[in-house]
């Protein structure tokens, strides 16, 4: 069998004491004990060598494989794509690579891991190496590494990271966005509105007499109200709106491409629906009202924080005018 990994360094060129036959046997045994698939094809893509790793991971009979076209022996291979890739190795005399991250596997080899994976096949990193022998014949050595473990753990990691990212955006109690993510979103929406000269409005709302509610029904009653109010408001919003819990009993809504008239209309609807919805806790009916402040982005605000301040003043006004109502920031000017 031709050498697979003979170093070409001038420093290690000859080992005169070991005869060639012994060297061949050593090379062949190494190839057969490798935990990596080794497959060599000639310039016509016919199989010249395949090592034990491949023999035991497929149910093909060795004698039938040698001399066969790689595409007949492994009909699962994408023929057009792989032919072009193999041609590049021969013509350019350069190695080529195929990672599981781009293609999970090339060869359909069942994996032997005691783990549940998304695919029944072994995930693979494949390397295609050009080989030229002394008689100027060209071959391609294909190394097939089993990376099922790496693939599996990478997938798990990505899933976990996505979950963590999601959790870090969500308020644990109400399951709507937390203040930090809401503020990040506002920063982006503010930049977008300024860049494209688009409308942008905010609503901030606060549950009326929430402390009293907590005193009367306990914190669990208060928590229940926060959860139900969040769900109720969420149902009234468009997908592009961003709804977050701003503080204890304070909420905020970003309304992209919305003017103050649209924002006031929505705020009034929220105000009305919450006022007429009875919340029940431990068989007791709790009546809840909210106060809301509305502001639309104008040329005056130098940053998104100023828009929050405007909306917050409107909310304060709604509170001081007797609660359970909507106040618009522009009317304060």
């Amino acid at each position, binding site marked *: 069998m031709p050498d697979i990994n003979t170093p070409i360094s001038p420093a290690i060129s000859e080992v005169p004491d070991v005869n060639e036959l012994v060297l061949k046997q050593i090379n062949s045994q190494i190839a057969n004990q490798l935990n990596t698939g080794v497959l060599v094809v000639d310039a016509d893509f016919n199989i010249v060598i395949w090592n034990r790793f491949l023999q035991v991971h497929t149910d093909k009979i060795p004698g039938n494989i040698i001399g066969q076209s790689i595409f007949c022996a492994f009909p699962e291979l994408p023929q057009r794509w792989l032919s072009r890739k193999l041609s590049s190795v021969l013509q*350019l005399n350069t190695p080529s690579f195929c990672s599981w991250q*781009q293609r999970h596997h090339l060869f359909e080899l069942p994996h032997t891991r005691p783990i549940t994976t998304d695919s029944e096949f072994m995930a693979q990193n494949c390397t295609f190496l050009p080989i030229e022998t002394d008689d100027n014949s060209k071959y391609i050595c294909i190394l097939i590494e089993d990376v099922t473990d790496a693939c599996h753990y990478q997938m798990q990691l990505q899933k976990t990271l996505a979950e963590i990212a999601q959790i870090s955006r969500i308020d644990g109690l109400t399951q709507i966005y937390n203040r930090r993510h809401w503020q990040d979103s506002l920063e982006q929406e503010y930049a977008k509105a300024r860049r494209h000269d688009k409308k942008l409005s905010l609503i901030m709302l606060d549950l009326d007499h929430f402390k009293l509610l907590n005193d009367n029904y306990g914190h669990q009653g208060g928590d229940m109200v926060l959860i139900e109010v969040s769900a109720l408001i969420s149902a009234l919003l468009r997908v592009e709106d961003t709804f977050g819990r701003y503080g204890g009993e304070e909420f905020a809504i970003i309304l992209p491409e919305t003017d103050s008239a649209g924002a006031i209309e929505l705020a009034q609807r929220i105000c009305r629906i919450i006022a007429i919805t009875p919340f029940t806790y431990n068989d007791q009916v709790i009546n809840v009202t909210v106060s809301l402040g509305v502001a639309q982005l104008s040329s005056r605000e130098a940053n998104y924080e100023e828009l929050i301040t405007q909306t917050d003043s409107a909310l304060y006004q709604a509170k001081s005018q007797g609660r359970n109502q909507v106040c618009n920031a522009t009317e304060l000017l």
Partner: protein
Amino acid sequence: MNEFHLTEDQQDCLQELINIAMGQASDQLARYLDTFVYLKVPSIESVAAKDLMKTLSQQKNTMAVVSQGFFGYEGIRGEALLVYQEEGSARIADLLGYEPDELSQDEQLIDISSILTTTFLNVFAQQINNQLSYNAPKLLPNIQEILSEHLQQMPFTWDLALKVNINYQVTDYSFNCNMILLIPETAITNIKHVLDRILEEF
């Protein structure tokens, strides 16, 4: 003075070796792609390690970075970064002779990068009587923090980068990329020895 501390002769020698490598790589590429590859003299410049992130972030619309390690005899090793600036990789599949649905955009970039890097470095290595092996190319996420983290987490500390500005133009289709070779200090010393050896022959 440049950060390489190469003498004028060494610099001239290196530029000439790179020109020849680029010429032969383009020829191979032209034969493989069955088209004419228009060759501009690749300009080379050195970038100090501390300035590389700045250099990279100055390039507007950096679209993708593909990284591939190389190593050869006499301690010559490093990492090649191919930096693409513009959108338009949609036609790379076409150029490589693939059907667009045969491979993803990521795979196209990785494939073309590997071909450009290995053809060029193979010829370069040949001229200095060396031979290189390569790691599998990796597409780096196009996020500044991750990129700078990657540059800091190299398996070696590199002191300066050799930036080779390459402009490939393939008949009716052109694309630009920068090849940046990150080379550790020991490898630079070795490259200087090799350059001196070549210069001594004159």
